[in-house]
Each structure stands twice: as structure tokens, then as C-alpha cells.
């Protein structure tokens, strides 16, 4: 291509593609949401979750009732709002999924591979044990303040790592989380995109996961949301409870700290 010839025009032309912000994004679906009302089928899943928590399972045939979610063995109320956090028994920072996997493998004696393989509903499935447990545990923090622990050095480094992963561009499309979630008032097609680098955006997003997805008819977890964002970024499959998944959730929960939990939410 003959580079020099048009170079004088380039500066002007670059301006043509420059940005004119459009921010009428909210409101497009107001009517839809109003007609949808507040009825959230997640309630059925919450009940399942409570039942599963107290039901003996695994080779050791014990329930999860002694599982420590961070506030002491068996304390569920308020636990979700303080995750992810460092657990000294596991010697790492864990989100709810990593923690449940830990309890299922250590208390109940189950295989970690199987726990992970059956974590999220696949097409045609109507919910998994893990999804139900997370829905119930999150509901037990409803109305409470998002307050992830940041006292331990590993909790703070999980945040820093999460932040750098948030901006990590890779893959055929050069996408990162920031591609869609670093600006305020933007949308993709018609879906409003939260700015996850701000307190307001992160709190709004973090507080409403897990969520009942009306398009799928099931409750999805925040960990699943991380995996699905990676899929949409054209990345490989994110492992449930992995260091990257936990770090990204730490980044979001710390950015959203002070917000009020309202999960399970209701989403498209």
C-alpha cells in the first residue's frame, strides 16, 4: 500500500472514527423489566441448596454442615458477602466455589475432579448441586454489605493479580475484561455494560450474582460468569475455583465493597 501519499489526510480521517458518546443505553428494556416483575424462580433453587447443605453425601457420608465458609464451621449467614478470603487450612484465597470444592473433598471425601466436572449445568440440565448451594449461601447474605477480607497479604495480592488479569489482552480478538467493562454508560448490542473499575459498577454487578438467567432457566454463579466472559473473549475454558477465577472475583468484590448483596439476581 502506498503509505506516504495520503498521510497528510490521515490525521483528519482518524478524527472521523473518533468517539461520539451515546448514553441512552438504559431505558431500552425498562418496559420489559417492569412487565417481568419481581418473581424470581431462583427461589426453588435456594430451597434445594439448603436441603443439599444438610444432606450427608460422599464416601464419608457427612453433610456440609461443618463446612467453614470463613465465619466458623457451619456459619452460613453473612459468609458469602465476605468472600473471597484466605483460608489457612487450604493455604490459599478461595471464592465460594473453591471453598465448597474444598469442603466436599475434605469433609465428604469426594473426588475434586468430579466436583469440578459437575459444577455448572450443561445444555439441557436444570441446575447442579453446586449452583443450588451457591444460590442458598448467597441468599443468606442478602441485604448485607459486600466486605471481602483484605487483611491477609495473599488477599491483597489476589486483588492486584485480579486487576492485572482484568487488563490482560490476548487471543485472536485481542480482548480483555477491560474491553467491555472499563467505561461507563456503554452497551454491547442492547445490553448495558457495567464499568467494573468503578465502585458503582462493580457493586451493581457483584451484588446480583449468583443470578437466575431467564434465557437459560437456571441459576448461574459468579464463577460461571467469569468462565463465560472468558469464552466470549475467545479464551480457553476457565477452571472453576482456579487462581485466575478467584483473583478476578476478588478484584470485583473489593471494587464493589460497601455495596449491598441482593443475590440471587434476575438476569437476561
Amino acid at each position, binding site marked *: *500500500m502506498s*503509505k506516504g501519499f*495520503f498521510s497528510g*489526510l*490521515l490525521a483528519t*480521517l*482518524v478524527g*472521523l*472514527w*473518533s*468517539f*461520539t*458518546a*451515546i*448514553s441512552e*443505553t438504559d431505558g*431500552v428494556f425498562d418496559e420489559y423489566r417492569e412487565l417481568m416483575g419481581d418473581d424470581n424462580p431462583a427461589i426453588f433453587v435456594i430451597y434445594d441448596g439448603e436441603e443439599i447443605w444438610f444432606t450427608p453425601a460422599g464416601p464419608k457420608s457427612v453433610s456440609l454442615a461443618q463446612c467453614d465458609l470463613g465465619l466458623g464451621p457451619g456459619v452460613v449467614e453473612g459468609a458469602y458477602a465476605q468472600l473471597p478470603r484466605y483460608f489457612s487450612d487450604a493455604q490459599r484465597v478461595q471464592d465460594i466455589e473453591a471453598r465448597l470444592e474444598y469442603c466436599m473433598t475434605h469433609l465428604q471425601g469426594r473426588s475434586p475432579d468430579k466436583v469440578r466436572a459437575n459444577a455448572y449445568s450443561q445444555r439441557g440440565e436444570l441446575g447442579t448441586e453446586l449452583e443450588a448451594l451457591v444460590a442458598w449461601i448467597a441468599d443468606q447474605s442478602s441485604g448485607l454489605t459486600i466486605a471481602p477480607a483484605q487483611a491477609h497479604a495473599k488477599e491483597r495480592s489476589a486483588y492486584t*493479580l485480579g486487576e*492485572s*488479569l482484568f*487488563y*490482560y*489482552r*490476548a*487471543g*485472536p*480478538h*485481542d*480482548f*480483555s475484561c*477491560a*474491553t*467491555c467493562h*472499563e*467505561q461507563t*454508560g*456503554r*452497551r*454491547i*448490542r*442492547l445490553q448495558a*455494560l457495567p464499568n467494573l*473499575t468503578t465502585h458503582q459498577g462493580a457493586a451493581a454487578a457483584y451484588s446480583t450474582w449468583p443470578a437466575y438467567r431467564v434465557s437459560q432457566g437456571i441459576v448461574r454463579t459468579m464463577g460461571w460468569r467469569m468462565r463465560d466472559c*472468558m*469464552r*466470549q473473549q*475467545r*479464551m*480457553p*475454558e*476457565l*477452571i472453576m475455583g*482456579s*487462581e*485466575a*477465577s478467584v*483473583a478476578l472475583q476478588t478484584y470485583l468484590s473489593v471494587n464493589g465493597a460497601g455495596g449491598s448483596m441482593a443475590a440471587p439476581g434476575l438476569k437476561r
Partner: protein
Amino acid sequence: MQTIIRICAFIIFSSALHADESYNVLLNSMVDKNFVTVERLKQDELQAFCSQPRSATVDEPRAAELREAALKGVPTPPGENYLGDWQRGEKVAINGRGLQYSDDPDQANGGNCYACHQLDPTELAYGTLGPSLSGYGARGQNPAMLEYTWTKLWNTHAYNVCSHMPRFGAAGILTTQQLQDVMAFLFDPESPVNRPQP
């Protein structure tokens, strides 16, 4: 002077370390799925350079190098023929499939233009991550405009080094033919992009 060099070296070294750490964590946190492998986690120079917040200060000389390199890699379309078939281009613009592990690798990739841009003004479901391109053809259909737009689609970083738009040509997301068709969708007076606003 030597101290300054050391500090610079340290900054460069530590940021490289930082990127390495992210890469290693991602490598340990992800698995291959269908046709998508962890190879994709490796960053090229441009991706590594652009993995920081918008607000971060840009190393301008390095940015200029990367822009130059991007521009050099942009080929002229066969026979300098920039414009294909706008109707096929419209389908490419609408189609959002391609390269996700849930997609069928045997199907042609889409451009997913509507995810970020307004094009046909009668289509309501358009995103706003990028500017509106409705009426793009009215900006003129001269050689400079054609070359500029072609370059933008092929490798946007030739102009805006850390733009969030994919490198549709350079990264092999769309074929040359698909890009020519998208060009026609943008420029053709008959294309709905250039229809008068309703």
C-alpha cells in the same frame, strides 16, 4: 545517569515479570476446550503493550513503533478493489459467531460489528463501545477514505495503537473477501448504512 538507567531497566523488567505472572496464572487456570487451546493465552508485543488501563501513561516512542509495524503489515486488496458486495457484508456485520469454543469452527466467522457500532439506523440492537457508523458513506468515497477504512478494518492499531477493536484482517478473523464486503456495506449508497435516518 546510571541510576536512571537502572530504574528504567527495573521498571521494564518488573512490568515484564508482571505480565509473565499473569500468563502463568492464566495457564494454570485454564484448559483447552474444543478447538480453543491455551496457546491463545500467549501475548504478542502489541497485546502485552496494551494490557493496561486507558488512564495509564503511554510510552509514546514504543507506541509509534507499534503503529508503524501495524501499518506496514496492511496489504492492498487484490486489484486495489476495496469494495465487494454490501449484501454479503451486511451478513458479516450481523453475525457474531466465530472463534469462541462454543462456535462451530467450520462456519465462517462473523464481524459482530453491531456489538459495538450503529450501522443500519433501523437496527435497534447496536452497541456503543465504538462510534456510530450510520451514514458512513456520506463521509466520501475517495481513495483516501477507502484506504483509511480498509486499514482500520485490517489492523486498527495502525492508527490507534491500543484501540479495543479486533484486527479483523491481521488476526485472520475475516477473509479478504469478507472485508471487501464489509467495506461495501459501509460505503455503498444502496447499503442500509447509508439510508436516510428514519
